């Protein structure tokens, strides 16, 4: 069998800011070093690779991997230490690496036909990689950064290694997930705002469903999203002359596919009677639509890895908009696999009273399939 190619890179400075109380490392390396930060990413990478090496040795039939990586601390050192030999250095980084090194390295990986990009870093690294991969090649992160709101990370190094094996053996199919990062400009102005920056493919565990008495079938994330979308289409059909505000994220975007409209991934779009009536709306335009349409529904999905339904990646939906829609008109959608990663849902509109109202009696119904909802715990 032909070897799968994995592009592997470490952002050597990832995570350094966290230990010294900074909200990231990208723009603050000098400050982090000054505060005594030491590199930690290579330790997390090492843990993952050693585990992966052990798992791959035990695979029957054998799985061949060809590594494409960067020189020294950006990848080659860790692969060598873990015992991998089929390693080709395709990029030599600068002494002090920056986002440009990440992007250039990923460019080389793609040129060389990488099937998967495994990286060690945080949200910033994920964002830089997505800028190059653009949903073409799946990516997977070893969690090592300060911020990890994005859905591309394994929960820990060991689990990340298992996901790589699942991808290589074909048992885990890639699905699209959200990539988020701190809006650094707003942050410098003193505001904590997490922005949805992109969508990326990542190998994802299938959802188990009981299809017969003792037969458990696995359905892919794409199947489950399509099922949720089919149900939302029925709701849109059954609610004529109603304004549907469709929030950001890949799950909600699938609804657009069913309506045959070009739903923006990162923005809020409006639909009435199945027709697109506004796209990538800001607060002002949403409020204007709400003035004209007394019947309204707001469709949201938890964004990122922490289960925020509001307050991360959808800041266009201001407290006033939420209030005018009303809790009863909010439809939350999420796949069971996503809920398994974010078992508690949160609201952070910036107004604690509104957050409490949204959290309700501690549970909110979430659409998880066709005519199928689940009560999910809420937390303030």
């Amino acid at each position, binding site marked *: 069998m032909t070897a799968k190619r994995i592009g592997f890179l470490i952002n050597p400075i990832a995570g350094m800011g966290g230990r010294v109380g900074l909200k990231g490392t990208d723009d603050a390396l000098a400050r982090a070093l000054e505060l005594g930060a030491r590199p930690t990413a290579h330790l997390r990478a090492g843990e993952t690779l050693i585990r992966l090496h052990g798992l791959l040795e035990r695979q*029957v039939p054998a799985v061949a991997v060809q590594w494409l990586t960067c020189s020294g601390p950006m990848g080659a050192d860790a692969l060598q230490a873990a015992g991998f030999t089929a390693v080709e250095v395709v990029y030599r980084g600068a002494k002090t690496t920056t986002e440009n090194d990440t992007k250039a390295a990923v460019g080389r990986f793609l040129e060389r036909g990488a099937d998967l990009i495994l990286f060690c870093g945080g949200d910033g690294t994920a964002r830089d990689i997505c800028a190059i991969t653009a949903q073409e090649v799946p990516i997977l992160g070893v969690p090592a950064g300060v911020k990890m709101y994005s859905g591309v990370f394994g929960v820990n190094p060991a689990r990340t290694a298992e996901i790589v094996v699942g991808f290589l053996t074909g048992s885990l199919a890639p699905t699209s997930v959200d990539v988020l990062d701190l809006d650094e400009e707003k942050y410098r102005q003193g505001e904590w705002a997490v922005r949805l920056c992109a969508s990326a493919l990542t190998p994802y565990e299938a959802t188990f469903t*009981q299809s017969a*008495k*003792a037969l458990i079938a696995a359905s892919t994330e794409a199947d489950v999203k399509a099922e949720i979308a089919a149900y939302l289409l029925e709701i849109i059909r059954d609610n004529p002359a109603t304004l549907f505000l469709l929030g950001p994220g890949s799950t909600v975007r699938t609804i657009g596919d069913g309506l045959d409209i070009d739903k923006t991934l990162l923005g809020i779009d409006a639909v009435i009677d199945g027709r697109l009536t506004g796209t990538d709306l800001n607060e002002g335009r949403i409020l204007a639509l709400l003035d004209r349409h007394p019947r309204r529904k707001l469709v949201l999905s938890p964004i990122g890895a922490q289960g925020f339904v509001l307050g991360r990646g959808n800041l266009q939906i201001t407290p006033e908009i939420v209030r005018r829609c009303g809790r009863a008109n909010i439809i939350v959608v999420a796949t069971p696999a996503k809920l398994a990663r974010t078992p508690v849902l949160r609201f952070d509109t910036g107004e604690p009273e509104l957050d409490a109202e949204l959290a309700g009696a501690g*549970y909110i119904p979430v659409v998880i399939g066709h*005519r199928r*909802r689940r*009560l999910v715990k809420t937390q303030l």
Partner: protein
Amino acid sequence: MAEPTVYELSVAGRQGVDLPLLDVPESPLPDGLARADNGLPELAQLDVVRHFLALSQRNFGVDTGFYPLGSCTMKYNPKITEELARLPGFARSHPLQPPETVPGNLALMHQLQQWLAEIGGFAAVSLQPAAGAQGELTALLMMRAYHAERGETGRNQVLIPDAAHGTNPASTAMAGLDVLEIPSDSRGNIDRQALRAACDDTVLALMLTLPNTLGLFEEEIAEVIDLVHGCGGLVYGDGANMNALAGVMRPGELGLDLMHYNLHKTFATPHGGGGPGSGPLGASDRLRDYLPGPIVVAKPGAALEAPEYAFSTPDKSIGRMCTYFGNFGVFVRSHAYIRMLGAAGLRDNSYHAVLNANYLRVKLRELYPVPFDRLNMHEFVCQGRPEGSDVRALDVSKRLMDFGFHPPTNYFPLIVPEALMIEPTETENKETLDAFAAAMGSIAEEALATPERLRTAPHETPVRRLDEVQAARQLVLIDPVTGRTAVEG
């Protein structure tokens, strides 16, 4: 080694049977209908006998070994019930025969209805549903009819705990209703705070698997039932796990409005081969009029005469759920089984089913984590990943086959990662349970010392591990006549 298919064994010209002499005038087939080759395999009788005997010897069933498949109640089915079902009076009666010509059959059905009603604590029972899931669907249709008659057509939500049988949401979808899943709490009970949040005037019913798929009895069941009744909803019991309760408690007396029984589980009729099943439905007084018909009713006979039996359909019945009268052959077997055991025997069965499951839980819990480690009913759920190992439940199950045991149910319920659901049933003795526990112990040791032995298991079976992912994603269809192959995926 794989046994070839009959098509692979076929050799042109071989013959297994002689057709009887023609006793009607010979007449040619219409033009264009005759084929030179009809694609049927050609084998001698001995080839056929050896082929099917070889296959039968590779079969695994309760009659060949321990079969702890959780949620399926794979207990031993006494052979005498097979003999009784084959009595010509039962086996040869025809469903279109006038009912008055088969009074014995009607008497048997009537008695079975009465017994099941008594065992479950219900006012009436219909034998119509031909499977457990059809019993669920029947119940949902009845509850919808009940609410509709009261003008409450806005009730379309069915509350289903996440430890319920997976067929419950499927039946709800089939009935055109909406599912609202209720989480479990840390003891494996329904999270009552969530249930409270869900109870409103849109609730049609709660579907309560009793005991649930964790093998646990709902500790605050009275409060759960009150909450749902309090908002105007009904409570349906999934009685598929009745093997823990028969003869011990009557769910109807707790306030359950409806419950189906699985005759092919609790009442010992063959299953696991896709049928025939039987899922009779018990109803409380307020729902009995909606039961599907026909139901057998008895008119007391004159002095010293036997009662007269007849078919009758309740006033507000939702109608038939199957043609004719349900799976009659299954009724005969279950009737004989209940009659042999009597009330005390049924109760002892439940006790032993619960005892066996608790015995195994306690024997295995040091090796395989049990997330809800409390007194269980007829089954329990542990995790197929011994502490410190990284094998999966599937690996443990595959390795069990090398020890001659059927694997437990894998990956269900979904709320327990790496779930192994183990239901030993009452018909297994202590030696078998000990042998199973010993095998699980050896496997736990292997999981740490030689995990690849598990990952590549089974090693001793005629067919080694199948690639289940490939099997599900890439179907290969072969037309035996033309030999054409179609690959999907």
